[in-house]
């Protein structure tokens, strides 16, 4: 097998000309520049200019760091996103493992069920959770009718409700990312470990989990960024008491009509997501490098 992989083809394909590579890249670069980089640049520019005079200013940033509410919103956004990322990855992992390894006829059903949430719109799914979780909702109604609680449990308009709703929204993406990663692990490694006496739990702990770290990191990053930028679910399930940056940006744009301050909040959100993505990617790159070095030393 390795011989085949290492053998050079009889005729090496010619390297693509640099010009033709640019031509292939040009449309996507143009689209990204026009619809992503340009608006992003305008937004960042707005955050540093005065609304009346258009003179450069840090006043909007000073406000962001001093009003207390904006930093609290950033903290809530980070907490919510971390919890969603962890919930999605922990809940999604067993499902992904089943999908990657099982030959059961139920595999297709589980796959369909895992992706089913994506068939309904996010607003519809969130309203579904509202009906279940709110004070007048299904759970509280049932508990009160059974006499188990005297007053409704605080299941909505808080962090708990938003994390539950967003986990439901993001879970399919986490499962897909983890499934792809687990599918890439050679099943012979698991068999070999078992043949050498490892228990099922040991195989998972010492073989599957370490080898699926790229998928876990990917699932955490996707879930974190999707949760941090989500608007509809936090707006509906978080209410007035649990505001995150996305809902606060919406208020600044539509109610306060303060687009420059909204731009500052958007920049803060972007920086947070880029930082987390950078740390995740760097961790994975270093880990891969260490692993390659170890393998190099052994050989």
């Amino acid at each position, binding site marked *: 097998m390795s011989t085949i992989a290492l053998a050079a083809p009889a005729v090496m394909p010619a390297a693509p000309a640099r010009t033709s590579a640019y031509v292939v890249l040009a449309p996507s670069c143009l689209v990204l520049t026009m619809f992503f980089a340009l608006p992003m640049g305008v937004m960042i520019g707005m955050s540093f200019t005065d609304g009346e005079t258009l003179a450069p200013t840090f006043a909007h940033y000073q406000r962001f760091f001093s*009003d*207390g*509410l904006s930093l609290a919103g950033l903290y809530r956004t980070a907490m919510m996103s971390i919890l969603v990322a962890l919930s999605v990855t922990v809940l999604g992992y067993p499902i992904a493992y089943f999908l990657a390894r099982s030959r059961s006829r139920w595999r297709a059903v589980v796959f369909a069920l895992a992706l089913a949430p994506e068939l309904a719109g996010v607003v519809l799914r969130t309203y579904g959770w509202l009906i279940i979780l709110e*004070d*007048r909702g299904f759970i509280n109604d049932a508990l009160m009718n059974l006499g188990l609680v005297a007053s409704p449990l605080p299941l909505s*308009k808080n962090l708990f409700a938003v994390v539950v709703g967003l986990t439901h929204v993001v879970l399919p993406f986490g499962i897909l990312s983890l499934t792809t990663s687990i599918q890439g692990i050679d099943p012979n490694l698991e068999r070999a470990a078992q043949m050498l006496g490892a228990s099922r739990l040991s195989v998972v702990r010492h073989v599957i989990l370490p080898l699926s770290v790229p998928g876990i990191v990917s699932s955490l990053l996707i879930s974190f960024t999707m949760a941090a930028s989500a608007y509809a679910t936090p707006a509906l399930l978080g*209410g*007035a*008491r649990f*505001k995150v940056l996305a809902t606060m940006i919406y*208020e600044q*744009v*539509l*109610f*306060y*009509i*303060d*687009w420059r*301050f909204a731009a500052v909040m958007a920049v803060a959100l972007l920086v947070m997501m880029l930082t987390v993505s950078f740390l995740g990617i760097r961790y994975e790159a270093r880990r891969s490098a260490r692993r390659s070095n170890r393998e190099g030393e052994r050989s």
Partner: protein
Amino acid sequence: MNVNRCLPLCLVLALGEAPGPAFAETLIVNSYGGPYESIIEERIIKPFEEKSGIDVVYDAVGSAAQDYAKIKATKGNPGFDVGVMTASQSLQGCKEGLLEKLDAAAIPNLGKLAPRLSEVAGPCGAVHEVQYMSLLYRTDKLTSPPTSWSSLLAPELKGKIILPTFQNIMAVFLLEIMSVARGGDMIDNVGPGFTAMAELARQSIGFEQSSAILESYIKDGTVWAMPFWNGRAQLLIDQGVPVDYVRPKEGTIPLIATLNVPVGAENKQAAMAFIDFFLEKSRQEAWVTGYKVGSARIDIDIPDDARKRQITTEADLKSLKLPDLARVADKLGEWGERWERDVVSQAK
């Protein structure tokens, strides 16, 4: 040149030059969905189309705030010719040069509106309806009707009221009214209002932004009293919900709705004609009785039961508290932060 290749080009050129069929003028009106849409279609748009021969395309997408954001983002060219907004947005849009200034030469019926309300909306907004913030209550739960905004603090209403979020302008108006009732004023000294709102927050089950969600709480009896626009309150009564509404003794602040024309509108002449038609005496009568709201025209003839509950007379207009909306807009950021700290934190 090959004839087969030349023919399509010739056809295109020929058809392009030939006179096409005469298309009727089309006006795009952006406003709300729900009951508003069916009532405006029946009482305003259809009669306007019949009278003017202009086709109206009704665009119900977006709230007034979203529509205003669209106007701002497109620098006055949002893709519609007439928008329905509030006096606050009219003032803001005029200040930013995004809305067309309206004058009585193009819209003669503008001159028939009560000057006091027209002034509040500024030169870019034509006031086509007036609602007021009423105190809505359940008639089957409260032994006697409330008479004052302070009734919301009654012990029997503990855990039985709900408040609008600050991003619903009703919250701002309630804050100002409570401020005046407790010795403050509507702009510069609103401290007493914040104290009162904190007490109301402790009394409430929480906050909701959307009017549709707010009304669901009183419909199912979770909430027994709350501030609510009187037009929507009247629609609830008409649906048979056991509720009624009052104008409390401290007075109230109106929600002044305006028709506006973005500066980049393609059919300005038709837009002006539509606004003039909406402000005609007969159309205002049709609108007031259909959508159950008040009017800035005090010369309209409507049944007594409607007149009794709506803003339709000079005396009604005088009873309204009219804050300087431009100054309110300047204060919103500061008040919003204070609301989060002093009011929202007090809710359960």
